[in-house]
């Protein structure tokens, strides 16, 4: 009897876990505000699609620009990020829930030129902002705006 109960529990967990992971992945975290050039795209669930102004951006999307591309992004907390040509940026984690005191922003700037302007998250919880780059980890000590260039 006990064994059946454990089996049932395991089964329920097996069904629920991927669902919650999926819900986490599919959260809208911002949108495209502007693009330039023809080669600007969003990589989501292994598929690449062209990016246009007002397109939604989801957690764990990767943003790509070609040799003449550039993109401007507005996150839900008003963080502004723009990226120039030949860029690759992964929106790994974003959580902004001031009522629950939950903050997280984790971006992976793989290559390209980046302009970052802090929003409310960076103001309320600078330590919750972390960037992975090809040369190491960048963390905010207080609200900070910066520009950066990285190569692979």
């Amino acid at each position: 009897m006990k064994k059946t109960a454990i089996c049932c529990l395991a089964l329920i967990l097996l069904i629920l876990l991927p669902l919650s992971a999926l819900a986490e992945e599919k959260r809208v975290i911002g949108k495209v505000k502007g693009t330039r050039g023809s080669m600007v795209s969003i990589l989501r669930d292994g598929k690449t699609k062209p990016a246009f102004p007002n397109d939604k951006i989801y957690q764990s999307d990767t943003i790509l620009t070609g040799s003449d591309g550039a993109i401007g992004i507005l996150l839900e907390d008003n963080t502004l990020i723009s990226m120039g040509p030949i860029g690759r940026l992964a929106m790994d984690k974003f959580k902004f829930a001031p009522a629950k005191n939950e903050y997280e922003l984790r971006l992976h700037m793989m290559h390209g030129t980046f302009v970052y302007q802090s929003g409310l998250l960076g103001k309320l919880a600078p330590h919750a902002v972390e960037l992975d780059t090809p040369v190491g980890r960048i963390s905010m000590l207080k609200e900070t705006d910066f520009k950066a260039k990285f190569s692979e």
Partner: protein
Amino acid sequence: MNWKIVIVLLSFPLLMAGCGSKDNFIILSPSGEGQVGALEIETEKGSAVLDEEGKAIFIDDRKSVPSDPTAVNRAETQALFQDALRVHPLMPQSFLLYFKHNSDQLTEGSQKLIPYILEAVRKRDSRDISIVGHTDRQGEDGYNRILSMERAQVVYDILRAQNVKGEEMTILYHGEGNLLIPTADEVAEPRNRRVEVMVR
């Protein structure tokens, strides 16, 4: 032929070489409110703090020590980031509109803000405008909820009449539940009789 231009053009790649040969760097931008930020970069070999506006840290690769903060040429920086800067979004802008006592009529001062709201919408090509109504604590709770809704609706109608599309606006209302200036119940406070318009 203007030789000054030629010299500038010729020297440009040389100037850029200062940055160009360095493939990885991070520069502290001046922030809008006159405050200077601070960040830390950590490689496998060490870490460095950047807390001076206009200075940069250069890093060769993951296995090297970050450079000391170094002053960089502002014009050079602008040139290098011009493609990103051209599409860099404008920060969302919020407006507070105030109302006459126990009324859904805007004060004269707030009526004058409407053109600035329309300008903010136009500049951002905004499709995301939230309109949030509030009251002060004078009067009954339920009455104030309805009054805050009516106030938000008035602002919606004004913007709608100026050709802002309905589907681009969202109305919310909080009655006396979200005070700008905290007060005791039944206190008349003009600054709490407001509608906040956020243009994103």
